[in-house]
């Protein structure tokens, strides 16, 4: 499969991951679990065709023996009678082995793809259940490489390495048995030759590994440089800096060439070396065989047969087959090691602890009778209520209003590095609560806690009077709309992206939401309007336009509480005013948390909290805060920089 960082050579870098056989065991177990019938069937077919492909030397030995017997007389008729039965058996065996070969190659294609798909899906499913903390603490590139590089190593393992191991292992044992059966002396010679072969390839392989590691480093460096320069190409142009960057590039590029040349030289040499050691071993077997024949040395064999030309010749072929398969086997070791490293990374992701949810309070559609009693409803009523089962088996319903209270909240992402200290915020339904403060003051952290991306260390957060730890996460989040500064849209049409907020929204609902959030204007001017395809995180739109779509997406979900974290930072102030008007209309009677670094965005908030190093240092509305002549005042008059 195409991956992004293939080393520029046919050979793989021979990093030395630890052999962890329990991982291999788990993989094989999974494989059997996915295909309990097909996998053993494939194995049997592989073994069968391996046995058949190691038998020809026996037939050859017999045919040559027959030739030898009738050679002097030239009596083809008698020879034919002797040879034909052997060939007939061989034809039958061949037919069977061909059938099993076809079966196993077809099955293997099917199983490999199925296995990969199932692994991908499992990995993806486990990933969806991981807490946000996982994504915040792992680089996206690393997560992605599980799906590209690591899955790739599994493909190699299942489609090639495992069948190859089985096959070569089988052939080697069958051939070895035949060799011992025929002649012990020659077998010892072959084994000695194979040992020297392994030794040499280890030496050369080691040299190549050293340079491959270097090459990888060079590749990384070159790619880093290219990436930086291509991203800054416009700056290069503006500063007429072309020649300097060319010179810098040449230096790095030349270093990569040197390393790549060396690494590939070693890797390419391995093939001819192994092959010719095989050739020399072949000569040795011929010479020693000849010597044994001439010298009439008593044979050492299981068969008890005397050494003859009809044994030496097939033995030569077996030598080739034996060394060839040893070679095959040794090549697989590297890929087994790589697959195990890849698999253990994949398993690490799958074994990652999922987001826990011990909540039991759920959000239901409700109708409110005139006397104020709340009854649950199956249909969408537009009114929502928290369904709260109690220990004694009773149920209470609380109307969803959007009243959020933080009480003495402490929080730390990492132990010992407390971010929030004793934060208390009261947001009543319909209020707009704003947070201001420098980067790292803890603004975003507060919103992370309200929708439980992270759990608080101390204190309480109550939603409509219910501790949010008791609310099922899915229901809690459904009642909160979020719009973040980093807007991430999905590949698909504009309409689909807006509908992401509420999957059963009609086109009209989506367009209405877009109108409300001020996005309709530019969307309808796009070439395909609402059907315009967005790709690569909507790179064809401006950041401001992406934010508008994200706001429309949240608007269509129509949540009672909205969190806007720098949601309008990339929208110009004129458009923002339009958005604000729409949002105000949308959020009438609902609670909004706003984080913004542009003060004009938050000036009309009911409450403004000024955060500093995780503490609320000032609170009030615009007017009262200005009168206090504190931090907010300084920010407003420009005496302070917010970054």
């Amino acid at each position: 499969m195409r991956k992004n960082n293939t080393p520029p050579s046919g050979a793989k870098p021979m990093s030395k991951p630890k052999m962890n056989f329990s991982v291999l065991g788990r993989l094989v177990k999974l494989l059997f679990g996915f295909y309990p019938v097909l996998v053993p069937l494939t194995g049997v077919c592989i073994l069968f065709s391996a046995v058949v492909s190691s038998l020809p030397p026996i037939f050859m030995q017999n045919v040559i023996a027959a030739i030898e017997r009738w050679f002097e007389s030239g009596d083809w008729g008698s020879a034919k009678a002797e040879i034909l039965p052997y060939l007939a058996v061989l034809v039958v065996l061949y037919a069977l082995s061909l059938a099993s070969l076809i079966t196993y190659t077809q099955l293997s294609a099917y199983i490999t793809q199925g296995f990969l798909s199932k692994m991908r899906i499992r990995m993806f499913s486990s990933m969806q259940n991981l807490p946000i903390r996982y994504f915040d603490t792992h680089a996206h590139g690393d997560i992605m490489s599980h799906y590209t590089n690591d899955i790739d190593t599994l493909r190699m393992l299942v489609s090639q390495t495992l069948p190859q191991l089985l096959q070569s292992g089988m052939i080697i044992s069958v051939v070895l048995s035949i060799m011992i059966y025929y002649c012990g002396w020659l077998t010892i010679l072959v084994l000695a030759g194979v040992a020297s072969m392994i030794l040499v390839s280890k030496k050369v392989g080691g040299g190549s590994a050293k340079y491959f590691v270097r090459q990888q480093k060079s590749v990384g460096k070159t790619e880093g440089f290219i990436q930086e320069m291509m991203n800054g190409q416009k700056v290069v142009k503006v500063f007429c800096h072309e020649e300097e960057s060319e010179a810098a590039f040449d230096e790095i590029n030349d270093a990569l060439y040197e390393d790549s040349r060396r690494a590939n030289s070693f890797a390419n040499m391995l093939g001819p070396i192994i092959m010719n050691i095989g050739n020399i071993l072949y000569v040795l077997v011929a010479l020693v065989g000849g010597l044994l024949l001439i010298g009439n040395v008593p044979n050492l064999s299981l068969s008890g047969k005397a050494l003859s030309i009809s044994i030496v010749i097939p033995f030569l072929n077996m030598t080739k087959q034996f060394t060839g398969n040893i070679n095959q086997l040794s090549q697989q070791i590297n890929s087994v090691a790589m697959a195990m490293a890849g698999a253990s990374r994949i398993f690490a992701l799958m074994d990652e602890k999922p987001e826990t949810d011990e909540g039991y309070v759920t959000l239901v559609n409700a109708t409110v009778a005139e006397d104020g009693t709340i009854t649950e409803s199956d249909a969408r009523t537009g009114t929502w209520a928290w369904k709260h089962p109690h220990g004694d088996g009773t149920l209470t319903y609380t109307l969803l209003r959007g009243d959020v209270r933080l009480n003495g909240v402490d929080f730390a992402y990492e132990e010992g590095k407390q971010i929030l200290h004793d934060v208390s915020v009261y947001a009543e339904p319909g209020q707009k609560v704003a947070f201001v403060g420098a980067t790292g003051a803890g603004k975003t952290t507060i919103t992370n806690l309200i929708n439980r991306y992270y759990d608080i260390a101390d204190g309480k957060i109550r939603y409509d009077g219910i501790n949010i730890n008791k609310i099922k996460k899915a229901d809690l989040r459904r009642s909160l709309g979020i719009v973040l500064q980093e807007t991430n849209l999905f590949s698909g049409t504009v309409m689909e992206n807006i509908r992401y907020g509420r999957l059963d929204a009609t086109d009209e609902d989506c367009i209405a939401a877009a109108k409300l959030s001020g996005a309709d204007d530019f969307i309808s001017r796009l070439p395909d309007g609402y059907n315009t395809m967005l790709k690569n995180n909507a790179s064809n739109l401006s950041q401001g336009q992406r934010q508008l779509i994200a706001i429309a997406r949240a608007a269509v979900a129509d949540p009672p509480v909205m969190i806007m974290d720098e949601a309008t930072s990339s929208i110009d102030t004129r458009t923002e005013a339009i958005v604000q008007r729409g949002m105000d209309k949308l959020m009438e009677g609902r609670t909004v948390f706003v984080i913004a670094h542009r003060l004009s965005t938050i000036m009309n908030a009911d409450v403004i909290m000024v955060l500093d190093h995780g503490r609320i240092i000032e609170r009030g509305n615009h007017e009262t805060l200005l009168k206090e002549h504190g931090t907010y005042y300084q920010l407003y008059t420009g005496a302070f920089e917010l970054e």
Partner: protein
Amino acid sequence: MFKTLAKSIREFKTPSIITPILIIGEVVIECLIPYIIANLINDIKAGCDFSTILTNGGIMALLAVLSLSFGAAAAITASKASAGFARNLRHDLFYKIQTYSFDNIDKFSSSSLVTRMTTDVSYVQMSYMMIIRTAIRSPFMFIFAIIMAYTMGGALSTIFVVAVPILAFGLFFIARKAMPAFTRLFRKYDRLNESIEENVMAMRAVKGFVREEYEKEKFTEASDEIRRDFTRAERIVAFNNPLMQICLQLIMIFVLYFGSKLIVTSSGSYIDVGQLSAMLTYGMQILMSLMMLSMIYVMITMSAESARRIVEVLNEEPTLKNPENPVTEVKDGSIHFENVSFKYSRRAEKYALSDIDLHIRSGETVGIIGGTGSSKSTLVQLISRLYDATEGVIRVGGVDVREYDMNVLRDSVSVVLQKNVLFAGTVKENLRWGNKNATDEELEEACRLAQADAFIKAFPDGYDTHIEQGGTNVSGGQKQRLCIARALLKRPMILILDDSTSAVDTKTDALIRRGLKEFIPETTKIIIAQRVASVEDADKILVMDGGRIVAQGTHEELLKSSPIYFEVYTQQTKGGRENA
């Protein structure tokens, strides 16, 4: 396409030519070895004395050593040739891209240029190595093995007339059938991975909207579809192996039967037992070379796409070129737009700029205000000829910008881009982009003007502080101020700040503007800003909307004459800025 690529081989022509020659040598020896082995076997069978066996064994060992030397030498030259070719390709690509105009860069996008210079070059390097090693090896192996088989086995080699076409046709058929499917599938697979990346990046949105199950369903469906398609294609390819097997088996049975018949009937005079096993070896060699050829075919087809993408970059003509007798001096900082209209591509229907008539005197300060997409940035990028106007003329210092030497023009017109970047290196190194000969004093002076000196000195390493790639270790406001300082070091006649102080607080912003006014009064300054406060004391303010200048004048004039300006102003100051 190959012509363009071949130009990058240059000094690596020698190893590129030597490699196939060495490989041919290796192939000849490899085809001789079975012949010697056959003799060896016959010697043993005939019960020859040990010295004859030793002679043939010696020849064989010698051949093995020779083959080893050829092989090893070819390994070295092939690696040199392919690594060198890749080096030259990267070099040519990089140099070519340096000649690109903004237009060209926009066309490819920087991420696609990165892929072309890295992944695509790797693929071409691999293919090139394959071509000079295996693509020569296989046909020669095929021919020599057939010649040897015929010379030695005579009538026995007729089996190849049957086996070779079967395999060749089969392999070709499989490759033809599976290849297009695979190219399509790889793209699909890339898209699947892109969708995973999208999901990972948008995880907060996924969880916020409780769409985990929805995402799982979507992914399962996509993954399953890919599995089905891949399985279908893989199952076609899976016939390669049995096909090869059936040909080998045919040869084996044929050679065993007719071979023994020939030996027995001719009493070993036509062929002997030794030739029997040699025929099998040749059969293997012939079939393997066909197999390799089909692999090369697949490999080359797969990398052809990469090659195409590389050639695309190499053949792209820079859209902007220096005039023949360029003007090499910019007289003053005056700017004139005369009936200028601009669109980004000839095919675009909408003009990004229409009917711009604008006259700026040298030394003036001009502010530009306008909503997102009003083409403010486009307007200023025409001044230093980062793009050419579609219609009309732009004059700087009284001369049409197209008549200047581009470097001269760009050194006189300094643009601080909106999407600006710092590069990995020290603060000093970054600043010296503006002027590589600047003294430390000059650096500090520029930084003082850009209000950057104080925070730089507060860094533990001061001006030698290392900036990470992309400037990630300084704040947005600091980055912007460093970029301004870097632009100031050019001592330009025209300085353009494209939304360059958006992350800087208002007070510092004002200080920067005051500094510019006091210390470089003769420089023409153009300031694009979101904040009215950043432009209100300019000599002239332009209000842009939909690619047109809808109003121009001073702050006071515009408050009266331009409803847009008035709206923006009141929006930004409502709530009593007077109090402040």
